[in-house]
């Protein structure tokens, strides 16, 4: 039911989410192949902050394996939460996500071809560049196709679905031709953070921070946009500029995330949806909440992914979809399909 009174204020929800994320982050530093007690974790972090990191085994596990992975999970999760929120507002449709716009599959196609064609020649480091480039190119194509249509939101969705299908076919073709590298590609496509390095963090964290900053300012305009394109214009929103801005933002955040971690589904779909139910549709609260909520969800999922079947690793994309899809279906059952979240 829309508009049950929300028991918690947006501020309280933000505090709870933030605290939970910090707690889980510390927990995640402790668990894994080798259990490390909290005291040791804190000591290692403190020492490295003071500039003289201990070069022992525990230090390496905490500071070069677990910490970058945890921070990357936070940054990617936050970026996906924000991208999902921006996409849902852009389409006035709570079921939208960077997926349906073709960004994710566009970025995936670039990465797969990057790995196949140039991975050997110029090194694996170039793959994310390919991925981001193709994600942006595909979004630009979808955008240009959609601008010609009348109702922007709808034609964007349709163009996105079509282009997305095309990219998936390209990816499938690449997999078919991959030969002995099939397994690497498939594993990558499933999405995961096991290769996380500080370099990845240095790419993703600024991208997410930029996304967040870019979304804080149009938050009131995003509220107005929910009443429809025409009315938003009448109320003073530069609708076209808002749409273009949100689109660029979704494309950038999603393709950078995909380039680093593969396709991790459902975070961007579910986080804004759940938070909108918990705190209402006001974007001033939703923007920070979706960032923290996405971070928390991906952090939890990734920690589970590397511990439930330890020492083996479950691709986190499998985990988010396996848990995310039923949760999402349950939400749909509860709310009725197509009704906006409130």
């Amino acid at each position, binding site marked *: 039911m*829309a*508009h049950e009174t929300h028991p918690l204020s947006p501020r309280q929800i933000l505090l709870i989410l933030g605290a939970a994320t910090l707690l889980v982050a510390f927990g995640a530093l402790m668990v894994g192949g080798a259990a490390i007690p909290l005291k040791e974790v804190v000591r290692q972090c403190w020492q490295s902050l003071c500039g003289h990191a201990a070069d022992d085994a525990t230090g390496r596990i905490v500071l070069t394996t677990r910490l970058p992975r945890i921070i990357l999970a936070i940054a990617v999760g936050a970026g996906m939460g924000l991208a999902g929120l921006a996409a849902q507002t852009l389409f006035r449709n709570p079921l939208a996500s960077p997926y349906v716009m073709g960004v994710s599959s566009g970025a995936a196609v670039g990465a797969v071809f990057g790995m196949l064609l140039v991975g050997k020649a110029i090194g694996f480091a170039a793959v994310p560049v390919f991925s981001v480039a193709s994600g942006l190119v595909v979004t630009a194509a979808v955008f240009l196709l959609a601008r010609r249509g009348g109702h922007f939101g709808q034609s964007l969705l349709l163009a996105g679905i079509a282009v997305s299908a095309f990219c998936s076919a390209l990816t499938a073709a690449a997999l078919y031709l991959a030969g002995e590298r099939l397994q690497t590609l498939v594993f990558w496509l499933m999405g995961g953070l096991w290769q996380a390095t500080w370099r990845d963090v240095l790419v993703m964290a600024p991208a997410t921070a930029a996304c967040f900053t870019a979304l804080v300012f149009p938050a*009131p305009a995003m*509220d*107005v946009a929910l*009443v429809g394109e*025409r009315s938003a214009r*009448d109320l003073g929103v530069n609708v076209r500029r808002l749409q273009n801005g949100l689109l660029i933002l979704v494309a950038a955040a999603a393709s950078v995330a995909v380039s680093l971690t593969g396709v991790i589904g459902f975070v961007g779909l579910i986080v804004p949806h759940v938070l909108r139910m918990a705190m209402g549709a*006001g974007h001033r609260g939703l923007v920070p909440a979706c960032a923290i909520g996405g971070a928390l969800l991906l952090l939890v999922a990734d920690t589970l992914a590397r511990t439930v079947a330890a020492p083996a690793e479950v691709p986190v994309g499998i985990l988010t979809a396996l848990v995310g899809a039923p949760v999402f279906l349950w939400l749909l059952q509860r709310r009725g399909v197509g009704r906006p979240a*409130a």
Partner: protein
Amino acid sequence: MNLRAENITFGYDPREPVLRNVTLEVVPGRVTALFGPNGCGKSTLLRCLNGSLRPQSGSVMLGDRPVVFMTPREIACQIAVVPQDTPHDVPFTAAQMVMLGRYARWDAWGQESPEDTEIVQACLRRMNVADLADRPFSHLSGGERQRVVIARALAQEGRGLLLDEPALHLDIAHQLELYRLVRTLAAEGLAVLIVCHDLLLAPLFLDTVVLLAHGRIIATGRATEVLAPDRIAAAFGTRVRVAWADGTSVHAALERDEQDPLP
């Protein structure tokens, strides 16, 4: 501040203009009404007037400024629009919906001030929907939604108000109330343009009637002159009997054709 369309021609497809050489002025203190058959370009004209659509030729001036050079925000501070229909599925309460009317006046941080809240409350009261303030917009009836949207337009505190068939979902008492409100707003100095089909009540509250047909203005003047049987026949292609009783009440009735079945 006058809102004036000067000789504008507009077509969604430039080869097939919906509006041809239309000149119209909305004047402060007066209620101007736009009558005309379905699809004759009334709503299109309204959207040209607030700069949402850009005419292929001619100009729309707000005071001495061309509307095309103004930002949506600047326009929204001056002109409020009550659209013909609003999506039902908006995830806001009535009060939040009205608060959106204040958007154009917020700074970059978009903080709602206590003054905004007061204005929203006042507008809700004025439209008799104060008791619905915390109800979800999607749960309201058609008439209640319409009054909330009008309250939102009032919250914009513009100097011009453009209403597109505002009486559509209202019962006769609320229609009367709406027309009285529109009169009062004009008396307070607003320039009001109202698109309507109502030959029964509306003519009693109008200063100027503009009759639009096939994208052209075919008559402009006082209601008693413009809403005459021959003019109506020319615009709508149907014969209507209109009787004015000394300007205080009006009777409009369809003239029965031979083919019309008896009730």
